[in-house]
């Protein structure tokens, strides 16, 4: 109970203020490390202070910080609450910074749990508290599953079933090596099974990414050579919709040039050097900087000039974005087309005219379709729990990578089985199934062995 925990305590979604709560012995000390303003260790209890959260000498967000010293607090520990103003991405960044500085991410219900353990809450409330504590295991998992669209639980259950089939077969091969009637699992079997496996897990993650954009917005990057119309496209978007312009240079690593809302879902235009600096910079540098942002983007809008032939830079951009979710916008469609369309095969292409605002609706419809925006529902969505489960699935993918490596190194199947069992356990944690004697049951019900 000695460690200091933190979490975003307000609901995630589009809201003006979000609060990060920190509780524990070192709460004040840790926040003070990242706070630019008064020395919080010297302030009185139950006071509010203005300042910035700073990371690597960079101002992340303008904040109000409430300092409450033990024991007159909710958890009876030192508590600091940080009111963040920079939107979800910034609040998340603040949380990450705290995590890097010695806080641990709170488990579901953990603030309340501490309140209970430290005698802040009466035992008569035990039932409610138990619910909260249990939510870590049962309810949280259920909630997480709701967050994962598309029957993920069913899919994971069936993956586990497949997996336990292979595992128990390998085990039987080990424990009963002389039964030549029993099928002997081969490396080839494993390889083909695992590639199906990988695809399924990747699919779960991509579905998750879809739902993730609900709370975080769609990170959008506009790329193109100077003067093809990037700025005007951005301006059209921001003009015609109720744009939330949060152009505060230097507050985040990703500078959000502006955001618009599609049915409550944010389209965040991320600044790239190519957009901000148009004429001053050498073309090459601008584009290169854009490329860095492309990797992190959810959506890339590639702008081409209809009236000019494709340049080497254009082709370079097209190549760099070919595996991303991207739309090619051919601007200045009122002018003669000089673009070699054959170079745009397999690409999502839209014609537009940013000066006349034509083609914008097409573009929006295309984005809506790409991200299933009209289907994604906002309810029952819980970011933190979901991220945990997704992290577990990513862990599984990492283990699958290990297995691939091991297969190259001739590591025997019975060792790879350790990895398989690991994946099986992790997937079990996700859907809330605890290991019992499932493996042995499977083994003896499937295989006929014994004296």
């Amino acid at each position, binding site marked *: 109970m000695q460690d200091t925990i933190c979490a975003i305590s307000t609901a995630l979604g589009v809201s003006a203020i979000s609060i990060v709560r920190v509780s524990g012995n070192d709460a004040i000390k840790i926040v003070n490390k990242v706070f630019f303003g008064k020395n919080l260790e010297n302030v009185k209890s139950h006071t509010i202070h203005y300042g910035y959260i700073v990371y690597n000498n960079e101002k992340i967000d303008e904040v109000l910080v409430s300092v409450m010293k033990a024991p007159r607090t909710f958890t009876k520990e030192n508590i600091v609450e940080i009111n963040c103003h920079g939107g979800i991405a910034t609040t998340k960044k603040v949380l990450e910074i705290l995590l890097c500085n010695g806080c641990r991410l709170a488990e579901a219900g953990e603030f309340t749990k501490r309140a209970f353990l430290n005698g802040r809450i009466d035992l008569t409330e035990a039932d409610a508290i138990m619910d909260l504590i*249990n939510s870590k*295991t049962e309810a949280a998992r259920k909630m997480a599953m709701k967050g994962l669209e598309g029957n993920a639980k069913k899919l994971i259950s069936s993956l586990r079933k497949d997996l336990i089939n292979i595992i128990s077969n390998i085990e039987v091969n080990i424990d009963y*090596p002389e039964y030549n009637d029993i099928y002997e699992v081969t490396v080839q079997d494993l390889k083909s099974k695992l590639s199906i496996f990988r695809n399924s897990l990747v699919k779960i993650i991509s579905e998750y990414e879809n739902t993730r954009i609900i709370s975080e917005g769609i990170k959008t990057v506009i790329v193109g050579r100077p003067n093809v119309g990037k700025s005007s496209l951005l301006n059209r978007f921001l003009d015609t919709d109720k744009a939330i312009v949060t152009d505060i240079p230097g507050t985040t690593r990703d500078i959000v040039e502006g955001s618009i809302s599609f049915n409550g879902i944010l389209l965040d235009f991320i600044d790239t050097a190519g957009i901000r600096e148009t004429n001053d910079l050498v073309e090459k540098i601008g584009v290169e900087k854009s490329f860095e942002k492309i990797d992190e983007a959810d959506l890339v809008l590639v702008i081409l000039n209809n009236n000019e032939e494709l340049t080497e830079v254009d082709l370079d951009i097209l190549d760099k974005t070919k595996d991303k979710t991207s739309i090619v916008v051919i601007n200045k469609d009122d002018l003669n087309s000089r673009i070699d369309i054959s170079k745009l095969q397999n690409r999502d292409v839209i014609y537009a005219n940013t000066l006349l605002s034509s083609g914008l609706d097409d573009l929006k419809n295309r984005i809506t379709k790409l991200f299933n925006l009209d289907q994604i529902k906002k309810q029952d969505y819980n970011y933190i729990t979901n991220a945990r489960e997704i992290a577990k699935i990513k862990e599984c993918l990492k283990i699958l990578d290990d297995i691939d490596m*091991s297969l190259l*190194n001739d590591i025997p*199947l019975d*060792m790879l089985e350790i990895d398989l069992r690991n994946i099986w356990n992790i997937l079990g944690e996700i859907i809330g199934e605890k290991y019992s004697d499932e*493996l042995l049951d499977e083994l003896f019900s499937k295989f006929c*062995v014994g*004296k």
Partner: protein
Amino acid sequence: MNYEVIVVGGGHAGCEASLAASRMKHSTLLITGNINNIADMPCNPSIGGPAKGILVREIDALGGEMGINTDKSLLQLKMLNTKKGPAVQALRAQADKITYPKEMLTTLNKQENLWIKEAFVDDLIVANNKVIGVILENGEKIYSKVVILTTGTYLKADILVGDKRTPGGPHGEKESKNLSNNLRKYGITIQRLKTGTPPRLLKSSIDYSKLTREDGDSVLRSFSYDFSPIYQLDEQIPCYLTYTNQYTHEIITDNLKKSSMYGGYVHGIGPRYCPSIEDKVVRFADKERHQLFLEPESRYYDDIYLQGFSTSMPHDVQEKMVHSLVGLEKAVFLKYAYAIEYDAIDPLEMKKNLENKILENLFTAGQINGTSGYEEAAGQGLLAGINASLKIENKPPFILGRNEAYLGVLIDDLTTRGTKEPYRMLTSRAEYRLLLRHDNADIRLREYGHQLGLINDEKYHKFKEKLKKIDELKNYLCTTKIVTSENNLLNQLNTSRIMNGISLYELIKRPEITINQLIEVGKVPNIYSDEVIEQVEISIKYEGYIRKEEKEVEKMQAMENIKIPNDINYDLVINLASEARDKLKKVMPLTLGQATRISGVNPSDITMLSIYLKKGK
């Protein structure tokens, strides 16, 4: 006369328990119903196999007798799973059923501090919930500081054949009528278990020409770290293979109701991994055939053990069944198959040192604890002998972790999860099996054996010498480089060339390179034993996976380090589910880690328990 230790039962558990206690310098009396049956092998004639073979190595590493005794009695020896990884390889011996007991009896007779008495024990002498001796069938009382029960399948044993139930132990030996009733009287829970054995056939009546032959290995090996092989490779006796067929299955199906099992005459719970042939035919109805092994029992008599064919059918049906098998058309029965039912205790009522929770100074080991198998029995016997001795000496118990030995897994499973069927050790029960290998049992356990006084200085020094050599070779491989000018050498070894110099250690990580190859080409001095080379090679080639398991062990250790006081009152732990509360009270886990392994105890219960433990501080 008074003894410090009384061991009741002379099977594999009893022999190891008696030897361990007497070797730890405590006067020990072994009471057996029949001296001629000491260390008898009433079922299959083999010792070892996957997981079990590793148990034998562990017993040997700690200073037990089973490994050496098997080495003295070999009919055939084989390393299994040689095409798989080092973690799952294990030795399996066909052991001579005449020689094994004979050699063991010789060892027991030679042992100082050990006496053997032929008698039946009817009851314990108990004072203030402490056992202080035993009462024999004739009323004679013998006093001791501790009693170890290793009664095997003899407690209220019944032999079942068809609809016939006959009181009696294996081979119709006299059973123990009263002991389990008396144990129940003291409040000990008794459960009923069942196992079975297949028929024995006359060797000369079998037509081997129709069967597949299975030979022993062509390399001399030994179970024991301290024993040089004495058998001749070409004198090993082969096993043979045959299969059931549709006709066999028809006979079984037609007569199913005549078997004890399907006729409803059996009450005990049998092991899933040892199904009777009728069970196999019923449960796996779509299988066209089942594999059977013909195993020799001894050089000195003609019984052939028909592995895979245990049954409780009446004799006439058994004959029909066997005669339907290829090669066994004219087989002559020497012994019929039977099922046996017997009493066992509930191992959840046992502490991790194998001492009973209800009666102090009472230890149990082997089938009485609900296990099956010679190796499982011997392992527990050894640990019971050790722990009984430590109890007498007022020393802390000897408890092995799940990450240290299959023996640790065995005891933890029994005392944490209990068992409702005869428990057999399987590779899949050990979550850290990559650390629990056949080849490193000595490295894991010999130190303990020496500390306990079961491994003498001479053996210990030999072991230390081996460790030194392992370090030396590892160090040599780390510090010796292969450079680009030696690329021709790499060509010669059929491995890819290098751009920069790398250590031999790195080179050995390549799957196609072995230390022996490097010795052949003169890159490594030829001064290391095969054992040393094997250790080093495994640790290099599988370094990644070994490290992975070690990380898992660390995670577990964190939970194991949170001790639960033995006077904990679970009624004071709030918000436990009632099932969890009952289970925790029964098991009384020693650590939070152990508590997580109890079935019916959920993560939320563990949270509440850990909160309670922290608040207590």
